[in-house]
């Protein structure tokens, strides 16, 4: 009871005796444990020696003789270092171009008055609904026409403009006092100089929030790179993992699959556990990734 009292110590005094919220909390604790089971299995199965046999594969109690054999196998069968490099190139490339496009467009919406502002705003807004993954068929033929089929650039291109990022930057820029810009204007700073030296440095939190959303969503992209990429050495992690899973599933090598999955998600999980607060607040602002 002591612990429960502690958890509710800042609730209004009058409601502290109520049972229903506590039942809801207990149910949530239970579900959170259920939510973690797939991760728990992944770690336990990764460390389980093959000698335990297929029937012990589902056992959630860790094996008494943990081994890294599965990790080594996964490392040898799948070309994970290559896939990691490809995914990193894709995410970085997209993010760098997006930084430029969303800064410029966000500034135009935040600070400039121009003819056709409303229709152009709606043009951007529509992109939030018309997510690129829906347009894989026409975009694949365009990428092929541009000669970018089976290239990492082809994977990146549809994401270079981001309505979400534009709106995020617009919001950040609107919060910056115009007096700062006026001072720079008197000193003769050009438009781009003002953006570069006043608006961008003061909007770093928004840039980092956007970077988190952009990188996690493109780290996880699957269907689009699957269509664009043909050569095995250009596969990103997700496509590599799906091919790897198909191969290992045939031989019932579940420990190896668990190890491969762990390798794919470990970088994201580590970064998340370090920057947990920042991740969560970024995802709240995201709405649509």
């Amino acid at each position, binding site marked *: 009871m002591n612990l429960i009292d502690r*958890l509710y110590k800042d609730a*209004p005094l009058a409601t502290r005796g109520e049972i229903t*919220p506590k039942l*809801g909390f207990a149910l949530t604790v239970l*579900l*959170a444990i259920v*939510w*973690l089971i797939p*991760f728990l299995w992944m770690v336990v*199965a990764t460390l389980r020696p093959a000698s335990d046999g*297929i029937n012990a*594969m*589902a056992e*959630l109690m860790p094996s008494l003789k943990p081994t890294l054999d599965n990790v080594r196998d996964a490392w040898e069968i799948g070309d994970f270092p290559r896939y990691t490099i490809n995914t990193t190139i894709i995410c970085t490339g997209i993010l760098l171009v997006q930084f430029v496009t969303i800064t410029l*467009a966000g*500034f*135009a919406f935040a600070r*400039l*008055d121009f*003819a056709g502002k409303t229709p*152009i*705003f709606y043009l*951007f*807004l529509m*992109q939030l*609904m*018309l*997510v*690129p993954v*829906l*347009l*894989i*068929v*026409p*975009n694949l*033929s*365009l990428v092929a026409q541009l000669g970018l089929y089976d290239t990492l650039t082809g994977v990146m291109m*549809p994401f270079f*403009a981001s309505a979400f990022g534009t709106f995020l930057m*617009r*919001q950040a820029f*609107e919060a910056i006092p115009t007096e700062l810009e006026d001072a720079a204007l008197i000193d003769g700073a050009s438009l781009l100089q003002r953006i570069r030296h006043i608006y961008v440095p003061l909007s770093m939190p928004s840039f980092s929030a956007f970077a988190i959303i952009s990188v996690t969503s493109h780290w996880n992209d*699957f269907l689009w790179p699957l*269509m664009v990429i043909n050569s095995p050495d250009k596969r990103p992690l997700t496509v590599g*993992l*799906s091919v790897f*899973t198909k191969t290992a599933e045939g031989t019932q090598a*579940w420990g190896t699959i*668990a190890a*491969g*999955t762990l390798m*794919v*998600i470990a970088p994201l*999980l580590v970064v*998340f556990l370090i920057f*947990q607060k920042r991740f*969560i607040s970024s*995802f*709240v602002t995201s*709405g649509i990734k």
Partner: protein
Amino acid sequence: MSLAEPAALPVATSAAPRLHLLKRFMGRFRASLPAYLLLLPSLVFLALFTYGAMGRVFVDALYQRATPKAPVRFVGLDNISAVLADPAFTGAVTNNLIYAVGTAVPSIALALLFALALSRTHAVSSALRAALFLPVLIPMVAASALFLFIFLPNVGLLDYYIGRLLPVLPNWLGDPDIALYAIMIITIWKNAGYYMLFFLAGLQAVPEDVMEAAHLDGAGPYMRLRHIILPELKPTFLFVTVIATLNAVTQVDHVFVMTQGGPSNATNLVLFYIYQQAVEHYDIGKASAATLLTLAALMGLTALSFRTMANREGGP
């Protein structure tokens, strides 16, 4: 025209107003030029990969090849009618509707429960939030790899632990009546924590003193939820429903990894059908027609939610 302004002489109006208008237009354009230049990079990519792509879908949907090597010829609405007559497509639409409702409703309900239970910030609730949020971060492909084993017949996690309680073990992914529901479980597991964040943010807008006053008036937890919290969360519900619907249409990676739309098309969803037509059957006409129909359906949803979205982004 105000009274103070002298009326223009009829002689002068013949040529001048048009010039005047053109001049004003040019002036406005020149004043807007910096903004257009700043928007240009974004607009180029939007034009190529969003609006241009939509245009190409329209055109491609009107053409077809007799054989894979034959040149394309105009077939009008034949592709659309072929898609609508294809039982695989109508099946995929039905599956997608069941899937959308069956994933959106439980994951939103769970998200609300989680948010209500974890709205107070302390070490325990932060840890629980992180646990519930973990699935959001990982790729759908990785989630699918884990759930492949969870649903594995006989030796899999589910059968190993729960199977002992059931008289007959279902083949979770192999039974056409069950497979779609198995797929839905992954989606709920993966998305509930994401929607929870929006409800957590929404709950901060519920004033604590109103809650306390309601309690003093004798309102129990259920009454407070029904009459204070839920009305306050209405915009959050609208917004989360839009995202959940969009996710139901655009997230099909697990179908690809786990079932390939099978058994007997029981887990085929619309986007996977489009992928199959384009990549496996090389039928761009049919794939475009199916894309067009999906876009039309989403446009309907967009029209419904446009105001919500525009307000959320701060208006034009």
